């Protein structure tokens, strides 16, 4: 895992000092609301319904145990004993006091963390595959490039006042787990016909109000040109992106309105002027790769026989292994998902006690490293199979072992009306209600792989438009209503969900979701997943059921 150099540390320390001064100036009335808003947003600070919200960067989702303990400390001392993990691998605190935020940022800086550019119209935290470096389908580990991009985007002097926010995601595996097709720039490590590895570059994807699938702008970009190509895209966007209407200001609209060909021509022309003077040296790439070398794996891990024996003897353990672990490239190891979707807790939330315990478990079992997933869960990426039983028992006692990863109750959910000033409708309460309706774990496992995403407004923080089932909260004359979409996907075969029909009332939404799942159970072919069935039969049978009973 990357360790800060003196430069990195100086930069975050100076940023803390800068924000401390800005906060003091604001409190003295020397900065206007608008001015301070732009500055605080670039330090992750929103002002929400009840209190400020501080979004902390989880650099491409990677945290060490010391950082996790610091999050616990902050939750305990500055918040109400919990924090929230987001779909972009970040961490949110819902109750910090504005005047104490500089102090919190200083705490974060002491463990090589920051909240720089986690909001505002600037380049955001770069995200990647949560199984990077350990998955079995990897072309190349994307994390060294993520760190190179993290540094390049951080305090970029030319691109900090963009028309709108800007998100970059990198994937290094065959299976896209980073939703690269739904980012302003998606980078996918690929091998060309000559066997060289480079990037397929996508541009103009995005969710939110106008979900659009990104288009390929460069089928193969040599690694040495990574930063010059990003710079070319950003400069064209900064100069020509719309600034007259914030709903049309994302790069996806620029690409759509100018057409991919015209946009690519502009980028290409700009890039050719930059390319040769801005190469990323092979030495820099190699040096960065050394920051992400594999930990000292036990090469004998697969010789353990206890794991299979425990699975055979303990059904609950076997079920958890089936659902909450993923294959690992090293024999005898597994990547373990910690479910933050226990039935009675808001999706993605974690208490200070859980955070501390997970930090200890990561030290004990997983080289002191924790990852944040795109579906608001955590991962301990390097667990020996011989340790799985003991780990499971401890996770179970922490309520972090609900065997529901990838199932109907592993919902992505935004904070919704309970916390967010933008929301039209509640989401946490609905998630709880759906959870209660689906309280039979065998039924959930029978439904199998399904992604339910729920956002409280059309800004779509929970990516409802790419949920296999998407739920979107809307306001209808002051009442909370919910619009349902089916068939979305953020994986390789990216798709935007199709609207089922008119929105349903709050007291009908859980029933509607249960209806949809029933239609699937009754009509699926053998081994057919929910998404496959929707793609085969379309939305009609679901529609008939949902609206027949309403």
């Amino acid at each position, binding site marked *: 895992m990357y360790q800060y150099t003196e430069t990195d540390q100086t930069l975050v320390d100076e940023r803390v000092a800068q924000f401390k001064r800005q906060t003091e100036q604001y409190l003295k009335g020397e900065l206007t609301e608008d001015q301070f808003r732009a500055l605080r947003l670039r330090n992750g600070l929103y002002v929400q319904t009840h209190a400020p919200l501080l979004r902390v960067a989880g650099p491409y989702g990677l945290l060490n145990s010391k950082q996790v303990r610091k999050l616990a400390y902050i939750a305990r001392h500055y918040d109400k004993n919990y924090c929230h993990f987001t779909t972009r691998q970040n961490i949110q605190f819902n109750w910090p006091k504005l005047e104490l935020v500089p102090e919190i940022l200083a705490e974060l800086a002491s463990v090589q963390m920051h909240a720089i550019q986690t909001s505002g119209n600037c380049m955001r935290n770069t995200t990647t595959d949560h199984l990077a470096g350990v998955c079995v389908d990897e072309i190349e580990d994307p994390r060294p490039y993520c760190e190179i991009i993290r540094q390049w985007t951080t305090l970029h002097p*030319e691109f900090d*006042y*963009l*028309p709108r926010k800007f998100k970059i995601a990198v994937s290094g595996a065959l299976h896209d787990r980073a939703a690269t097709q739904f980012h302003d720039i998606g980078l996918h490590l690929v091998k060309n016909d000559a066997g060289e590895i480079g990037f397929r570059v996508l541009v103009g994807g995005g969710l939110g109000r106008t979900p659009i699938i990104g288009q390929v702008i460069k089928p193969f970009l040599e690694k040495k040109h990574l930063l010059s190509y990003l710079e070319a895209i950003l400069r064209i966007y900064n100069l020509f992106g719309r600034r007259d209407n914030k709903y049309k200001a994302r790069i996806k609209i620029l690409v759509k309105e100018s057409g991919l060909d015209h946009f690519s021509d502009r980028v290409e022309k700009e890039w050719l*002027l930059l390319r040769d003077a801005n190469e990323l040296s092979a030495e820099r790439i190699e040096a960065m790769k050394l920051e992400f070398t594999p930990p000292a794996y036990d090469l004998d891990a697969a010789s353990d026989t206890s794991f299979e024996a425990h699975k055979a003897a303990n059904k609950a353990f076997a079920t958890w292994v089936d659902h909450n672990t993923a294959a690992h490239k090293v024999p005898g190891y597994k990547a373990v998902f910690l479910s933050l979707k226990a039935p009675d807790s808001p999706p993605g939330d974690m208490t200070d006690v859980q955070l501390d315990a997970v930090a200890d478990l990561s030290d004990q079992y997983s080289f002191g490293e924790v990852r944040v997933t795109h579906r608001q869960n955590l991962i301990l990426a390097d667990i020996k199979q011989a340790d799985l039983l003991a780990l499971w028992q401890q996770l179970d006692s922490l309520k972090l072992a609900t065997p529901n990863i990838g199932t109907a109750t592993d919902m992505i959910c935004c904070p919704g009306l309970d916390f967010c000033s933008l929301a039209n409708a509640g989401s946490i309460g609905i998630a709880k209600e759906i959870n209660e309706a689906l309280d039979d774990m065998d039924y959930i496992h029978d439904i199998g792989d399904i992604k339910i995403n729920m956002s409280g407004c059309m800004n779509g923080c929970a990516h409802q438009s790419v949920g296999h089932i998407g739920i979107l909260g809307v306001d209808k004359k002051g009442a909370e209503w919910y619009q349902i979409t089916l068939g979305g996907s953020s994986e390789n075969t990216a798709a935007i969900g199709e609207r089922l029909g008119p929105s349903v009332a709050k007291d009908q939404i859980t029933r509607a979701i249960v209806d949809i799942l029933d239609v699937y159970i009754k009509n699926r072919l053998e081994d057919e997943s929910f998404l496959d069935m929707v793609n085969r039969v379309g939305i009609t049978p679901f529609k008939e059921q949902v609206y027949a009973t309403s």
Partner: protein
Amino acid sequence: MQLVKDKEIVNDTWRYVPEDADLGEGDITVSLARWKSDQQSLLNHKGKVGLRLLPSDGVDSIVDDLDNIQLIELEFPDFADGRLFSHAWLLRSRYNYHKEIRAIGHYIPDQVFYLSRVGVNAFLPAKSSDLPFVLANLNDFTVKYQNSVN
């Protein structure tokens, strides 16, 4: 009026000439439209002539004129409009403009570090009371991750 130029507080010797006003005497700046429509009299002007650019003014259109332009003012209508950051970068890095580039209008002192990195070397703040903040904020960071002009 005073401004910060090359990290020092100096007096402003320039005057902006509005669209239809006489050029008068001394060192003046004009809009891009005036520069394009009135170039002959501007070239004959006894003092120095500079140009005031808005975010929507394309830098490309003045590339051939840069030898005759002694100052470029980048006027922020709104501090959130980041196009001028690219304009400054283009003027310095691509078109090798070495004379004064000055930020004016509604930017905030908290932006001057970035502005100086993309090549702006003079700052006329909206309020003269901001001069000390401009000077101080030029030193917000001692480290950087990217290449730019500075």
